[in-house]
């Protein structure tokens, strides 16, 4: 095995199957959320999401049209005919049906149900019915029909409308979406700028204490941000920043800096010395070298860190709760709103699933679009 020409392991098929199983296992949870976000509340609570992929059989109650106005005279009898499936429910088919709740599957489709005293009902698989009886029988409200219905897979985008457009204050995520975006973008860009300069100094400038500073950065990499919560909140309240966007931007900048400096420095150290020395000989200042040579060459490392910081700030709950969200709750971010939804609407899976998926969608897009840089950043950040 292992790349030796002519040898092929007999275990290959086992490898394929186990990888397929693992991938399925890993995807299953996310797919469940995704599928659930396209189902109505009734559908979610009546069957597992995995059943929604297939035609599902369920017992439902329908009612024929009201006789008054729709009934047609046929000799001395009256007839009401139509279809129990309203517009939008096409594609369903009936297997068994009944006219009383005591026996909901009394008749087969096409069979004539005798409802006593000459009153009859015929129901076809496609839902069309013919209800026949005397003047007395065919009056008042429509007749109830209990049917065992096979419904084709049915999905709706209604939940997304609720969560993004309509929806009341607790359900609507649009505001939280913008809020998250407002937190994320500056909190991603500002640390990059600061860290890039620092990383250049640590990589290519000679000064006493450089090694010590690098060691400090490595040490600060692992300091849990939990320690920073109270002291910094006190500081923010003390100097008048309070709870708000500015505070959360600053906090994310501070917490993201060690990784940024570490990643960028490791990358910049690896850049060819010749280029930088040639530029120096040609009279370029450090500032010019940095902006004209180092920054463009460091793009992969900058991109890696940008993705990290973006994912981290977008997905963050703790920092936002401590530094951003005040009692008015007007600046809530998506993660925080979802936690609140979990508390208040724990059973409303259609809202929860959709809200969660809205918040997951953006990082997923970024992830798949820029996976290459993310992997590179991970490797640089931890293997070194």
């Amino acid at each position, binding site marked *: 095995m292992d790349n030796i020409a002519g040898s092929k392991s007999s275990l290959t098929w086992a490898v394929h199957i186990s990888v397929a199983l693992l991938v399925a296992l890993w995807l299953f949870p996310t797919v469940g959320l995704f599928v659930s976000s396209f189902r109505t509340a009734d559908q979610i609570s009546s069957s597992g999401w995995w059943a929604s992929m297939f035609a599902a059989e369920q017992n439902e109650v329908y009612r024929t049209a009201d006789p008054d106005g729709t009934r047609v005279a046929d000799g001395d009898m009256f007839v009401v005919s139509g279809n129990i499936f309203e517009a939008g429910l096409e594609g369903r088919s009936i297997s068994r049906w009944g006219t009383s709740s005591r026996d909901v599957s009394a008749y087969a489709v096409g069979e004539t149900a005798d409802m006593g005293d000459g009153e009859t009902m015929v129901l076809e698989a496609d839902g069309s019915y013919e209800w026949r009886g005397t003047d007395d029988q065919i009056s008042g409200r429509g007749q109830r029909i209990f049917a065992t219905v096979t419904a084709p897979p049915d999905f709706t985008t209604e939940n997304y409308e609720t969560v993004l457009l309509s929806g009341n204050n607790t359900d609507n995520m649009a505001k939280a979406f913008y809020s998250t975006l407002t937190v994320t973008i*500056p909190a991603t860009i*500002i640390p990059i*700028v600061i860290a890039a*300069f620092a990383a250049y*100094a640590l990589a290519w*400038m000679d000064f006493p204490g450089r090694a010590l*500073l690098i060691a400090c950065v490595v040490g600060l990499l692992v300091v849990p*941000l*939990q*320690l920073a919560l109270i002291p910094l909140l006190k500081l923010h309240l003390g100097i008048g920043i309070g709870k708000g966007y500015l505070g959360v931007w600053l906090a994310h900048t501070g917490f993201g800096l060690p990784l940024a400096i570490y990643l960028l420095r490791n990358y910049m150290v690896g850049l060819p010395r010749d280029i930088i020395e040639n530029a120096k000989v040609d009279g370029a200042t450090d500032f010019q070298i940095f902006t004209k040579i180092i920054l463009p060459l460091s793009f992969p490392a900058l991109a890696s860190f940008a993705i990290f910081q973006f994912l981290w700030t977008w997905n963050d709950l703790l920092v936002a709760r401590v530094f951003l969200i005040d009692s008015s709750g007007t600046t809530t971010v998506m993660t925080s709103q979802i936690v609140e939804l979990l508390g208040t609407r724990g059973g409303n899976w259609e809202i929860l699933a959709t809200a969660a998926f809205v918040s997951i969608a953006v990082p997923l897009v970024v992830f798949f679009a820029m996976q290459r840089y993310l992997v590179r950043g991970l490797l640089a950040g931890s293997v070194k």
Partner: protein
Amino acid sequence: MNPALQGLITIIVGVGGCVGYFWLSNQVLDKVLFPARGDDAGRNINRANQIRPWLFLFPAIFALGLYLAYPVVETLRLSLTDRDAGGAFVGLENYRRMMAEDTFWEAMRNNMLWLIVVPAASTAIGLLVAQLTDRIAWGAIAKSLIFMPMAISFVGASVIFKLIYDARPAGQAQIGVMNAVWLQFDGGPMSFIMLRLLPAIILIAFIAVVAYVAWIFLKPFFDTSLRKGGAVIQAMRGVFAIVAAWLIFLSLRSLWGVFTITYAYGEPQQWLTIPFWNNFFLMVVLIWIQTGFAMVILSAALRGIPEETIEAAIIDGANPFQIFFKIKVPQIMGTIVVVWTTITLVVLKVFDIVFAMTNGQWDTQVLANYMYDKLFRSLDWGVGSASAMIIMLLVSPILIWNVWSARKEMK
């Protein structure tokens, strides 16, 4: 003002301010303070170059100092003072009060469980996937899909798994997968295989692995030729051996339990409220997220193994398992340790998952959530800071090791 506009302005001001600061300070340094002309041109250039690094570094050092270094000191101070008494120094009183609380010990116990299970499971599964996907054609896609949960927030993952653990009253259709599967078990032979035999096999495998590792650690005690390192190393070996013995004891007890427990077949379970086991249901969320990370790093390490070593092993007649465990794993041991410690760090700070799924109820408290609880619900800054210091204390061995290896690498 519209927050989006405010955000835009901040980006411009922030980025512009940073760039402006760097540009202007360099200009001031070169043109005003130490101009590179006149009599002392040479000396001025040297002086400017001595100062310049600090101009580049100043914002970063300032932010790091203010947002990471200062809080460590300040939290330490807060943990030794009493807020209600106007910040009076109370010594270790807060720690004493914290230690007296059951919840704290519950959080410590759970955290230890997390620290053992999550890094071990993530690294093991990650290594398995890395090895399996290495040689199949669609390996890249498989890896990318297993890596995907990395992008999902802890909160999003909590919602995803809450749906999986969802329970409805008996008789209704179950919408959570766990209960849907659970209700398939009826106590027949299939249930015996899946719920008693399979866990037993996994436990026995776990015991074997722990015993093997413990034997490696204990070997030098019996074989003096292997003994090296000072008393500290020997003491650490002893500690490892005790931990291993404890793990084996726990596993044996569970093994007994697996065969004797009566399962509640046919009853939907509220998984997150079953004490002790609910910790594992929460850990699954983190394992699901972190496995991709372990896989990516270990996969790169596996690729970096020199081909000759493997070919030599094949020629010597090693089978695939021997190649994996005796040739490959020892060569990537360093990377495995790095992955393990990185996940350990994540575990120590785990907050969102517990906060969103159980909020520490039903015996699932962990340190980070305990701390949040103290700081922002009980508003007890003393005990809150004390528990933050405990997290810091648990992190510090990794911190020291990181700094030490970074310095070694630079020399």
